[in-house]
């Protein structure tokens, strides 16, 4: 294989690794939400433990990218691909951490108190974020600027759902007693979901930078 051919294949491997990291982060998020929906709190410990694998893979991606820069001294779009891989993997790793935070908050919920209405809203917000994660990973895989740009509108949806959720929590907490701890954990979870959606938007911006060489604020 030519030197250039080898580099191209390394770039493609790098992207493959990030897609693998993305799949792990997506699964951690999905499983956390499923555990909350089904009240299978025992599962949450596994999700927290598995975060180590996400962290390890991110470090491995960093090492690989650093070595590629050192050995190939890439420029222009080649360099952007590697820089973006570092940025995207870092954002994905943070999204993994936020799933862990969600799982920890969920462990503090208990089902003695009926919070169905809130749960419904929370899960609806989570399913919007889930679609964003999937969409941004596909856009990254395909270096698709048009799809990346659509992420911003999706993020607006999540932000507005988050705003409404917090508002409704305030209204209930003001009149009901004994649910503060539960509701606070739910507020945390909703905040983590909103942050995850923000990271998806960040990644979408990196996709645009990778392709066009220009930073573009989607927020």
């Amino acid at each position: 294989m030519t030197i250039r051919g080898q580099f191209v294949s390394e770039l493609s491997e790098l992207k493959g690794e990030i897609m693998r990291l993305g799949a792990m982060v997506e699964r951690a998020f999905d499983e956390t939400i499923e555990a909350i929906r089904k009240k299978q709190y025992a599962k949450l410990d596994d999700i927290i433990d598995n975060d180590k694998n996400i962290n390890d893979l991110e470090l491995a991606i960093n090492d690989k990218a650093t070595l590629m820069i050192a050995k190939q001294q890439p420029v222009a779009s080649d360099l952007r691909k590697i820089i973006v891989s570092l940025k995207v993997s870092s954002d994905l790793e943070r999204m993994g951490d936020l799933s862990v935070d969600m799982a920890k908050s969920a462990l503090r919920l208990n089902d003695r108190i009926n919070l169905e209405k809130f749960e419904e809203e929370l899960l609806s917000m989570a399913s919007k974020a889930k679609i964003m994660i999937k969409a941004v990973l596909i856009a990254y895989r395909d270096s698709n600027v048009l799809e990346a740009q659509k992420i911003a509108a999706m993020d607006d949806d999540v932000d507005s759902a988050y705003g409404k959720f917090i508002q409704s929590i305030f209204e209930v907490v003001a009149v009901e007693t004994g649910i503060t701890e539960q509701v606070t954990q739910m507020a945390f979870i909703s905040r983590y979901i909103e942050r995850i959606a923000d990271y998806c938007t960040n990644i979408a911006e990196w996709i645009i930078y990778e392709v066009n060489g220009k930073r573009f604020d989607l927020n």
Partner: protein
Amino acid sequence: MSSLSMSTEVPVKKETKDHVNKSVVYDTKNLNLWYGDNHALKNINLPMHENEVTAIIGPSGCGKSTYIKTLNRMVELVQDVSISGEILYRDKNIFDKNYRVEELRTRVGMVFQKPNPFPKSIFDNIAYGPRIHGIKDKKILKEIVEKSLRGAAIWDEVKDRLQENAYGLSGGQQQRLCIARCLAIEPDVLLMDEPTSALDPKSTLKVEELIKELKENYSIIIVTHNMQQAARISDKTAFFLNGEVIEYDDTDIIFSTPSDKRTEDYITGRFG
């Protein structure tokens, strides 16, 4: 030679972002050059600015060495060369009948790929040019030699052996000696044709550092095959391909977001 009608004008940005106050040293306008029937330079339009390093990059045979040799009219030493268009050096067309080529070469020094010291002492290598220009006073010559060798960042290495033969220096030292030889006649512009391609990495670094220092006082045009070198030391980069200027811009832009796909393909190693 009748000039060919050129249908496609190469888009070259005349003024890049920080050029507003910098004067143009060389301005090449619609330059065409043929070796016999071989159209080696095609409608070149390039400005080069004062106190800047302009790098010329491109694959072998793209015309970059021909171009740099045209800037001091050395290319005319090749048989069967014909030229059309203009190169303005300090606003005067160097191809004008009345233009004195000796004067041009006094103002524009050249450093070649392979160091080419004279088979003389280190001192005499540097004093050669000034002596030709009629300077005989030993004290003045000594001063010029020291100043030039200091300017080329080699004084400390050779000050105690100025009477030794220049061939005894290492390749990197010889190249810096050749740069010092250029400086001795106090030129305005330095042309460098792959000045580090025959040097080891350490000597290359020294010459690169020197180039960065020299641009404070000189305008430098460097042909290089080393992309990273162009990226490290130049302010502007021109990409040549098949005798044409494909793109000319700030070096930062050429190496991050070039506008022509052929530039991108070349600098990322997809061809060339």
